[in-house]
């Protein structure tokens, strides 16, 4: 059994059967009063963030979670199939479970799959991925400085705002944390 002294960033606990990860935490204690740990928790199933305050010393249920590096293989109906590169074990996550992250999956992409009580609940894609532009308005040559942007659709269906000089067929580096354009990749 864990207690509030185990709380740190990334600590995973069970609340009403749902796994939550600590995003932020603060020890609060009036000089003459009860001590609490104020936390911000991320629901690992839905991604929703909640605030929760625990009494200092309160017992906590540690969530049984495990992260494994896996390779994306292919889509299968409403789901995506991944393979453990060491054990060759395969498992699948639904597009709903993957949420926005479906946009970062290309054949062979390595992701961290989060397992809760042995079942997959979500993935963390690489921080940066390279994706091809499949559709955007024709670019303006020479305009590499202005802050004006235009929408572009990438090969996975992801839409990002890009500088005007970007063309269909260009390869872009995308930051998966913010779903945003970083730079055009040469070649």
């Amino acid at each position, binding site marked *: 059994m864990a207690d509030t002294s185990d709380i740190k960033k990334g600590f995973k606990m069970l609340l009403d059967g749902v796994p939550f990860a600590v995003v932020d935490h*603060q020890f*609060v204690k009036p000089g003459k009063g009860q001590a*609490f740990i104020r936390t911000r928790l991320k629901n690992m199933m839905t991604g929703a963030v909640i605030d929760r305050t625990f009494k200092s010393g309160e017992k906590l249920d540690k969530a049984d979670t495990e992260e494994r590096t896996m390779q994306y293989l292919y889509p299968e109906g409403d789901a995506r199939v991944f393979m453990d590169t060491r054990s060759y074990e395969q498992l699948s996550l639904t597009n709903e479970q993957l949420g926005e992250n479906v946009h970062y999956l290309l054949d062979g992409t390595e992701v961290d799959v989060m397992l809760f009580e042995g079942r997959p609940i979500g993935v963390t894609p690489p921080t940066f991925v390279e994706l091809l532009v499949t559709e955007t308005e024709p670019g303006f040559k020479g305009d590499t400085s202005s802050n004006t942007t235009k929408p572009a659709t990438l090969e996975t269906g992801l839409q990002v705002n890009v500088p005007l000089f970007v063309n269909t067929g260009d390869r872009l580096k995308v930051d998966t944390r913010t779903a945003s354009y970083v730079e055009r990749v040469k070649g």
Partner: protein
Amino acid sequence: MPEPADVAVVQVLELRAAMLAAIRRFFAERDFIEVETPAIVPSPGLDVHLSAFEVRSSTGERVGWLATSPEYQMKRLLSAGAKRIFQLCRSYRSDEHGSHHEREFTMLEWYRADATSDDLIRDTEELVAFVANSLDQPAPEVQPPWQRMTVDEALQFHANLTLDSLNGDEQRFFRVWAEQVQPRLGNERPIVVTDWPASMASLAQLKPNGMADRFEAFFIGVELCNGFGELTDAEEQRRRFERDQVERRAAGLPVYPIDECFLADLERGMPQSGGNALGVDRLLMLLLRATSIQAVMPFPAERL
């Protein structure tokens, strides 16, 4: 969870030295004398929510505890005839650690004989403004007078609750205070919160309205100090200590002894007094808008 040092060490040393010098100058100009009291004491304070470090000799014999605040001994100096005293010292609380807490921290305590809590609130406002000016931290928002609010008003304003509706449920009070009230106190300018429930009076006298003659100042959601119109009634003080001991025993906490020398000196006579305890590390953190007290200490526990 080591915080990145957002103020470099040498700069921290210079700022701390300037702050301590300013505090000493402030009190010297007001005819206070600086005093020293022991760090190892026979009773570390009976407050149910404070835990102390026990001190043992090399033979395993208990010598005492590290003081959680120098309060008892400073009040004994008032009984002995001192009129205006202040102290800058380390205080020790064994179970407190977070971005606003260190187990070992610097406390400023001062007492005025023949004074009220109002006088102490004024001291506090002037002191903080004086320190800010001395540090060259232009801080118009800390200039006196500060806003004042009662505990009941703060509860109503920030949590839409009254003290009456909490019906003496201290657990609930502290939770609501921690979650909804304190984070919003003093966000623009420091605020003084007065009229605490009598059960949270600790060493404060009671006001004619039945509330504790206790005040706390908050700035940017951080508790900066706790002051009292001091209780001078030895019998009432003993009753409160005994009640604290019962509560500690019931909660399975170590039951610290009652400081009989302190009670004897109260009995002998302590003048009507006001006192205040202020967290010096927090003051510097707030004036510099640092994110933690660790950022303004050369050796927080995690860098030792």
